[in-house]
């Protein structure tokens, strides 16, 4: 297997994730796109780790997974709060800088 095939797969996922982040208005959808980006990064970590025979890649992939879980928890809580206050999770309407 070539290293570059994993890297290219990861870059495809990454760009799709970026498209999602930019093109989606719904908060939950943006969170999902961020998950795509994080997963793309994880593939990179593990692929490079395998290439260099270094366990660090996997370890950091694990850290990313743990942090992603925390991020989703907090992110969803914030979205829930926005939904409760504005009855919508449209991120483009959340543009006032002053709470």
């Amino acid at each position, binding site marked *: 297997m070539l290293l570059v095939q994993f890297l290219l797969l990861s870059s495809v996922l990454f760009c799709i994730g*970026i498209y999602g*982040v*930019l093109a989606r*208005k719904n908060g939950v959808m943006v969170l999902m796109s961020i998950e795509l980006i994080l997963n793309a990064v994880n593939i990179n970590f593990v692929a490079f780790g395998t290439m260099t025979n270094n366990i660090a890649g996997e370890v950091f992939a694990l850290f990313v997974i743990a942090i992603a879980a925390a991020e989703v928890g907090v992110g969803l809580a914030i979205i829930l709060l926005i939904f409760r206050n504005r009855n919508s999770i449209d*991120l*483009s309407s*959340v*543009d*006032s*800088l*002053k709470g």
Partner: protein
Amino acid sequence: MVALSAFTGDAPTSLIQAGGWFLEKAWIIPALPAISFVLILFFGKRMKYKGAELGIVSIAVAFIFAVCCAGQWIGQVNNADSHVEHQKQHQEEKHLDDSHNDGDHHETLSEEIQGTYSNELELASGQDLTVFAAAEEDDGHDAVGIKPVVERFTWWESGGRTFQVGIMVDGLAVMMLFVVTAISLLVHIYSTEYVAGDRRYTHYFAFLSLFSSSMLFFVISENVLQAIVGWELVGVCSFALIGHWWEEKPNSDAALKAFLTNRVGDIGLLIGMSILFWSAGSWSIIEINNAAINHEIGHSTLLVASLCLTAAVMSKSGQFILHTWLPDAMAGPTPVSALIHAATMVVAGIYMVARLYGVFFEGYDIAGSSFNILALVGSVTLVGAGLLAFVQDDIKKVLAYSTVSQLGYMVMALGVGAWTAAVFHLFTHAFFKAGLFLGAGSVSHAVHSFDMKKSMGGMRKFMPTTYKTFVVCTIALMGLPPLAGFWSKDEILVGTGGWGMFGGTGGNGTYVFALVMGIIGAALTCAYMTRVIYLTFFGEFRGDTHGHGDPQESGKRITIPLVILAAMATGAGFLNLPVGFLSGSKSGWQERFGHYVEPVATYFPPIAHGTPSWSLAIFSTVVALIGVSAAGYYFFIKVNAQSPASTELANGLTEKNRIAKAGHTILKQKYYLDHLYTDVIANGTKGPVADAIYWTNQKGIDEAVNQVGKQTARVSTFVYEKIDQNMVDGVVNLSGRASEGLGETTRTIIQRGKIHQYAAIMFAATTILAGLLIVFV
């Protein structure tokens, strides 16, 4: 007459390994209250005395263990002494002509061999007991000390790294074990009556146990990592206990304040400890001290670490300017205050400095200097808190400020190198301050209030036992001979070395400022304590018992601890009588405390001891008496003459004199420190600073962008209207529209609060930059 113990860090020290079952098993002492905490939590409510019996039994057993530890430690030191004696005889045989000679010869010899000392050292005849062994042989037997008992267990081991936990027991730790368990035991007994019928009685005892346990854990910790854990545990327990009656807002606020203020210092603690770890390569207290003393760590590193740790001391031990939580912490139940102030939480900072003294000693260059942060903080706290104590009406607050002030003494003593004096003061202070707090609690138990002016007065008639013990402890606190406070305070004053400017005592440096502040502090202490005595016990009873008749003396479970503490406050000072007192030469009953507590080992820096001076002792006593008599004259004669029920002169100095009044107001407002913290810093960040940033954002950046847009649009309009008339329409229209569009885009895209746009710009910019990088690099 001189009492010195000294040895150099690099000189090999022959150590005798101490041992003994109790010393090696010292971990049982914190374990006992920890177990009792769990048991009380689970089974307390179902027990006959609601869990109190568990707490008392566990701490009593711990106390017995601590006493046994102390006994074994003293035995070990005595063994070492006889070893030294033996060695000395051996030496005397070698130097037959010196054997019956004294002073002079030792002096010359020591100066010969110990020429590397930075301090001027003297050795008097018969002093070798404390010196352990004067350096008289070249085979490395420079000093004989006792190794601390160190037991390490591997906590976990993974990938070649070992994390250890362990105990380190030496004289200092043994002393603290004794003090903590003793005070805690008395507080436990006292509490059974004091908080009887409380709604969280069981919970209270559980946390009392945990509190004692964490402090004991902190005391015997072998490495700084463990010490941090103990330190934080103490903080958490104090939070729970100060906020014991959390239903009332001020109490929970006080608990929060204590906790948060301590966080400030804990940052310093963590940073300082990390610095020490990375530079010494070990968490072990002994190894860190060794590295510091042997100059394996750079001086500036040590200085930074010491400064960080000093911040921790300032918050934990309530030093000026982070002391504000301590008086508020009076919101907790009185026995807790006694425990916090006498034996546990606040002395943790002092203990930490004493433990890592090598770091501070080298970091601050304590020897041979005349100024350092530690001494400055201590002396400022000492006087500042003493002044604050004058304007408090709440008896517990007076005592709280008094604690702050006395802690100032200890920090100052550590700052000037008077290690033994500081630790000894910690020891004696524990007893009389616990006695005072418990006494105040006893009074308030009778009158249901802490306000001296409104609810007390004339209590000596109603509560004779409390009155007598309170007065004894007060005198001890004032430092009047021959009670405990005198000996320890005097030793600190001697240790400053400042008196040497006028007569000559050998200290580590010449800290005149510390000496002056120390003497002023002594006078202040005397004066405000006289005020407390008058307001509480003399004059007329001003309180209201709501028809319950006169206030009653508290029960046995309250008075017996009081009597014990008063006895200790009387006697504790005699444990460390200065050399030369009542006897020209060193004998077996002088300097016992220092002898047993002060480590003689490589991990302890070479401190020099000041010489006790009769003139200083007499002078400080006179100053103290002046303080007592001034306050006494004001209250007992003038105020009392005005009316036995009055609490101050109707037309006193603060009414008449503007400056005095201003001073009084400043004191009343506690130097405006709370205002500084809450109003200026907290609200400042919340209000003006945030507003300013918002304004900058709105007016500055937005406006700039808007203006760019508008001006571009205007220019393009101008172009359109003026030049267009004379130019080919198509070309000009295009350029006009283009620039207008540009203006609009700059205005609208860049800053509208739309995160999508921000993200788009960010990603686009990243892409472009990356592309450029690839193409051109």
